[in-house]
């Protein structure tokens, strides 16, 4: 009963990057407790066998179209039934919009202790414990689960994906048919860019941009880096940018490797959503902007002057690398 089951989440048939992180994390737990790491794939998904490379010992696929639209009730039922069949006592899901919808349901179904948004694991003689951010990024907590069964959601970009496994054959698994009580009528997502919570590089801009018509310089910088664009709350509230780009306490919380904040003063509510970024660069013409205190690198200058030159410098660097 030391086995681990992970939920291999996909989007439009493609396994998500966070899923590979979850497999690697699940494998590490399995290795720590001497068990196997199983992956459960639900619905129409391309190349589920890729999960082996990142650490799954076994891959189980319930190829039922009923799972192509998301209902947390069906997904948590599938995971808990599969866990029982496979003898897994720990379940790991991504801390995505859907993963978070599943986690609490699993805790109840399995009478399990849960850690929501874990970002690391610690092994000690007393057992495993998990770390997570609390108080909107202003503190950290270390939690131990007392229950026999454990459910964990893993925060995106918390651990690097590792190729610690090998090719594994995909097996099919019989699960009760999903009921689809929640009917998905429409899905509007941006195509062609990495969604913000999964992005490793983020270029974000605020009111200092003066208007939506000036965003081309932000997009050009993001393109040069292969980064995803984001914005501060006032920018989303005034409709300069779409709501889903808003990062901060009331928007999306992110933890990219690089966060470049342009023309954002750095109010505490904004920092709450981004202060887990590994490296922060702040570009602001106001030397008193509070964001400089939180930043790793700062450039105090007019953004309209400096951003195009940063784009140029990055393009030059990329060209030299190739």
């Amino acid at each position: 009963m030391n086995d681990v089951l992970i939920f291999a989440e996909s989007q439009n048939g493609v396994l998500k990057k966070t899923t590979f992180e979850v497999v690697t994390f699940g494998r590490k737990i399995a290795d720590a407790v001497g068990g196997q790491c199983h992956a459960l794939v639900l619905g129409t998904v391309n190349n589920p066998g890729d999960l082996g490379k990142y650490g799954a010992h076994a891959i189980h696929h319930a190829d039922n179209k009923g799972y192509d639209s998301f209902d947390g009730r069906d997904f948590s039922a599938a995971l808990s039934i599969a866990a029982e069949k496979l003898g897994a006592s720990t379940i790991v899901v991504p801390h995505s919009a859907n993963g978070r919808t599943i986690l609490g349901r699993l805790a109840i179904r399995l009478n399990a202790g849960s850690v929501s948004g874990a970002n690391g694991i610690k092994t000690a003689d007393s057992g495993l414990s998990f770390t997570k951010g609390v108080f909107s990024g202003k503190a950290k907590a270390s939690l131990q689960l007392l229950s026999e069964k454990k459910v964990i959601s893993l925060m995106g970009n918390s651990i690097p994906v590792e190729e610690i496994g090998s090719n594994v054959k995909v097996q099919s698994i019989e699960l009760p048919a999903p009921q689809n009580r929640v009917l998905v009528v429409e899905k509007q997502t941006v195509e062609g860019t990495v969604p913000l919570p999964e992005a490793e590089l983020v270029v974000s801009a605020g009111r200092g941009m003066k208007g939506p018509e000036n965003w081309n310089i932000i997009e050009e910088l993001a393109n040069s880096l292969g980064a995803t664009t984001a914005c501060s709350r006032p920018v989303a509230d005034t409709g300069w940018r779409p709501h889903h780009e808003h990062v901060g306490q009331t928007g999306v919380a992110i933890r990219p490797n690089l966060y470049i904040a342009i023309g954002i003063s750095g109010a505490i509510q904004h920092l709450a959503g981004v202060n887990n970024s590994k490296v922060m660069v702040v570009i602001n013409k106001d030397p008193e902007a509070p964001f400089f205190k939180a930043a790793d690198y700062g450039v105090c200058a007019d953004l309209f002057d400096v951003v195009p030159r940063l784009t140029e410098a990055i393009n030059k660097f990329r060209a030299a690398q190739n």
Partner: protein
Amino acid sequence: MKILVCISRTPETTAKISFSADGKSFDGSGVSFIMNPYDEWYALVRAVELKEKHGGTVTVIHVGTAESDTVIRKALAIGADDAVRIDAEARDAFFVANQIGHFAKDQAFDAILLGKETIDYNGNEVGAMVAELLDLPYISYASSLQVDDGTATIKRDIEGGVEVVKVSGAFVLSAAKGLAEQRIPNMRGIMMAKRKPLQVLDPIDVDQQVTVEGFSLPDEKSAVKMVDPENMDELVRLLHEEAKVI
């Protein structure tokens, strides 16, 4: 519609965070507490709007001690009709959800609303747990909710966009920004809130599943390194060679 709104009490958004000497609990001394903003601004206000449109009642439920009564009175002042307080420390999500599930199971609520997360422990767990306890559909991160003839149409935030879903019958929903606009209670609401019923109930027993080993504050950030605006090649070099992020 008969609506239940779950409200939580949290330190205010700009509170300085500190912990007890053993690092195992939050030190609330000198901190002012508020209703969790997602519960108040979005879940509660949308519930009150739905009541104003369709008729019905809005009940708020809170798990906490008598210290929370000011937060509960505020919810009544904003427009809830009555309140229930489960008289216990809100130990963790599993405990809170079981209290709410136990209260709600025979009450036939049409909708149970709560904020997408609390701003202290950031769990986003209670909604899903309550939904599972009551075997109801759960829709998370809702930024829009319309109800017509027993069918709810909900927009929910997903990675990089939105999803529109429909659900018939009772449901549990977690509220994100956009679901409603914050309402400031007026004098009439505040006066009426004093006379609205607040029922205090004993908690049920729930197993403890999680223990906190310790809280800690993030490591001090080293001072910002300022880069000459005339030399963006230097910034690129630092990001590549020193920070190793590009």
